[in-house]
């Protein structure tokens, strides 16, 4: 595949890795609180509800090391972060105890998305109009917001795991 490191500044990659670690920590804090306070500890118990609510997942198909397309990968990373920004916004009103953690998670995801977008602009590969996060489910009860929180946090962790692997690969000297 493309010699990845040459076109991305090392400081950008190191910042991204730092941001991924922060968002993973925020996400883990949200999962831990949802389990402790609302006894919702296992996303597998909420699959059926997740299907019914139509919670979308973000793909990083262009980021796998076999088929790494750098521009497409950055674009998918950015779109995925926008999707999670939208999903986290839809969870607003989840519960008073969880609100601060959710706000922090949203701020960090937004910062990361902005960081990626500005790098794409600097590389001249950013589309003219910034994409939006697409359709987001509406959560109509406190329980659905909490169950949605478990599913979104779990999906986000998987998304970040993939992102971390490709960023690490890109950052290798």
């Amino acid at each position, binding site marked *: 595949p493309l010699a990845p490191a040459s076109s991305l500044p090392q400081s950008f990659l190191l910042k991204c890795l730092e941001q991924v670690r922060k968002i993973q920590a925020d996400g883990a804090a949200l999962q831990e609180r949802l389990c402790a306070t*609302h006894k919702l500890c296992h996303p597998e118990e909420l699959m059926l509800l997740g299907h019914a609510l139509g919670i979308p997942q973000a793909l990083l198909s262009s980021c796998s090391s076999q088929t790494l397309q750098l521009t497409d990968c950055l674009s998918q990373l950015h779109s995925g972060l926008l999707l999670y920004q939208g999903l986290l916004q839809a969870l607003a009103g989840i519960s008073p105890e969880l609100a601060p953690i959710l706000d922090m998670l949203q701020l960090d995801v937004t910062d990361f998305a902005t960081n990626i977008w500005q790098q794409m602009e600097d590389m001249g590969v950013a589309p003219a109009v910034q994409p939006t996060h697409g359709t987001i489910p509406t959560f109509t009860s406190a329980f659905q917001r909490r169950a949605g929180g478990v599913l979104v946090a779990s999906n986000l962790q998987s998304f970040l795991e993939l992102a971390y692997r490709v960023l690490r690969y890109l950052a290798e000297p």
Partner: protein
Amino acid sequence: ECGRIKVSAPVVRLGDPITASCIINQSCSHLGPEAQILWKLGAELQPGGRQQRLADGTQESTITLPHLNHSWALLSCCLRWGNSLQILDQAELQAGYPPATPHNLSCLMNLTTNSLICQWEPGPDTHLSTNFTLKSFKSRGSCQTKEDSISNCVPENGQSRCSIPRKHLQLYQHMSIWVQAENALGTRASPQLCLVPMDVVKLEPPKLWALDPRPEVAPPPPGCLRLRWEPWKPGLHIEQKCELRHQPRLGAASWALVGPLPFKTLQHELCGLVPSTAYALQMRCTRWPLPGFWSDWSPSLELTTTQQ
């Protein structure tokens, strides 16, 4: 929506039964015709769900928990799906007691904070979030008629006391005061107090000092002490009477009381004591002849009586 729980009441008395129903609609994709609805209280499966198919094709299960013994619990409506148990909805159940009648309501007019401070006994824990509100209205004579209402006084987080600020008070008029306790299971009000704020004033004690010897004044005779006091500034406009008590610093003699002392004299000579002995002296005052509460005793002043 996949599933929706409805409960007979979100809050019940501790130990009372509670009935819940869960309706699963067909849009909950991948559902087999005979999907079995299961109930969990916390992490434990609850037997006894009665399931039926409704006319519109939805499935409904109803369960009655005979005794809800947790003050807080999560009731989950689940479906077996493959070999996993899927949670479709959750309801927070609460159980507790209606509020007890708040009692021992008492109030003091505090001239430092210029507020009427009332406190009460809240009664036993109800296990439910219970709001206490101090209610009052201005009145006449024996508080039978309500003249002007006074805004409610809401205590700070869970305290059993509240301060009604000066701007809501008429210090020399009757007012009726009571405490209302309210939670999801009921409301109780304490008996009403009928009082005049200034008649429940509690003063701060005066400051005691030794009376400095002056050349032109003869020294105190043996076994005597001379002291003076400084009245508490915010109470200067209030006519008061005071009491003095003394006891030898050493030994186990109890306090001896001297009074009433008119508070305006501001000094006093105490005799009949044991010569060259160290004494602890304290003073307190109360509004008088108008009603009021005694102040606390002042901090001790230590003086030694003159030798023989």
